[in-house]
């Protein structure tokens, strides 16, 4: 049963990922990527990590991709034009290297499959639950956690600096209305 669910989710994830790269309209790519993230959340659930699954949906699908979709809609991005491939003579080399990489990966996976490690019996563990994640985050890994908060502060400041219109951009002698600077969303309401 778990195997069936895993295969379905994996097919969804890989299919959406391929669609994302294949689509030339950025908004379609974004929708496909949301599909990837939702599939991944399902995969985390099969790995008994429900907390990470929920965070995955909230952070990636609920926040980051909304921003991306918002920017795509705001800038009205058009489809990519297909352009001639410049380095045509490198294609055979590329195919050869891809085959080599694939062979290498297959070898490693085969090696892992036959290695001596046996996972402990599948009993109920509380590793993925909220309490254990929180305990780890606020005791042993407190310093990295605090550093990420610093990182987010830097990102907020950076995003505001980037999104604010510089005074040089004057339209018809009148300074355009400044973008909302209090949000970390780039130019939310201009």
């Amino acid at each position, binding site marked *: 049963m778990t195997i069936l669910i895993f295969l379905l989710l994996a097919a969804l994830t890989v299919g959406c990922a391929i669609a994302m790269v294949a689509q030339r309209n950025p908004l379609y790519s974004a929708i496909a990527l949301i599909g990837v993230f939702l599939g991944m959340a399902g995969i985390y659930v099969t790995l008994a990590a*429900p907390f990470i699954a929920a965070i995955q*949906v909230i952070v990636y699908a609920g926040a980051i991709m909304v921003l991306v979709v918002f920017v795509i809609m705001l800038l009205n991005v058009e489809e990519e034009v297909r352009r001639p491939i410049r380095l045509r003579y490198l294609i055979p080399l590329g195919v050869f290297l891809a085959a080599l990489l694939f062979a290498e990966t297959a070898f490693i996976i085969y090696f892992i499959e036959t290695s001596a490690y046996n996972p402990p019996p599948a009993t109920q563990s509380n590793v993925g639950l909220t309490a254990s994640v929180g305990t780890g985050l606020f005791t042993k890994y407190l310093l990295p956690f605090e550093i990420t908060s610093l990182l987010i502060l830097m990102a907020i400041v950076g995003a505001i600096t980037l999104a604010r219109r510089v005074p040089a951009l004057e339209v018809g002698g009148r300074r355009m209305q400044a973008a909302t600077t209090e949000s970390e969303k780039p130019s939310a309401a201009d």
Partner: protein
Amino acid sequence: MDLSNPYIQAALQFLAIFITFNVVLMIVAYTVLAERRILGFIQGRLGPNRVGPGGVLQPFADLLKFIFKEEIVPDKSTRFVYFLAPLIAVTAAMMTLIVYPFGPRVTLPYFGQVELVIARFDIALLYVLAVTSIGVYGIALAGWASNSKYSLMGGLRSSAQMISYELSLGLSLVGVILMSGTLDLYEIVEQQSGWYGFKWNIFPQFIGFVVYLTSAIAETNRVPFDLPEAETELVAGFHTEYSALKFALFFMAEYINMFTVSVLATTLFLGGWNVPGLALLFSPGSIPFAVFSVIGFFVKVFFFLFLYIWLRGTLPRFRFDQLMSFGWKFLLPVALLNVVLTATLVWLGVL
């Protein structure tokens, strides 16, 4: 029939989900009717009262109308996304319904001890937040795919508004989470059953409750935060180009979201199914206790739904820049302050 058989358990769960969906859809249909009647009362007119006695069959007439209307698909729309958007909106709205505890533990004659909740798991509250955050796409994509100015403006506004207020919404819940120390909704409700069923979280978390209520109204795009569909400026906002059943899906999603948000407010702040003093009359676990608890739960939920309608009949609409600065400059700092205050009090052992 062996109740421990996993297939039978799965079948029972499916049955429970089916019943829940239908009950919620009925509630939604009658919320719409109640809204029209109450708005009529507030504005000094009658409201729909022709179909059936006092208008009680009006929802079915509306449904028939939606089914038989002509579907108009705009010529320049992006077909796939245009059809996908209402589905996302309605699915995201309905998926949250399974985690809410609507009644206490009860001993039934055949099934033994049953918890009146469909799915109980560790991260229920996070699940609700995650699924509701998907609902933004329904509106944003609908606005984009219709290929119309008004729809696009509505979609942009709604996505900006919803991600802004989602922050305050999430932070207002942190206070409750800090106090109860769990994300499991069932346990949060059970912790509020002290003081003869009156130990509700609203008393220590009043700031959080007010912030939650405000941002929840903004999340569901209701008056006074209904900028995405401000009909005086944007025709109908993101669903301008939708007709017939696809419009009905958006409509349904909005009202299910209203219901969801009311249920969450009841569960987290108003003690869920706890009715004050009920434990003195009946012994906990008996069937009458459970029945009155469920009734109490729904009374609280309907109070919130009534509050929504009341606000709609009373308040004017915000301007968009007012909306943004209210969310970011007032609501978010207040929510953060509430988190700091609660954390300090919990750390000192007061709460």
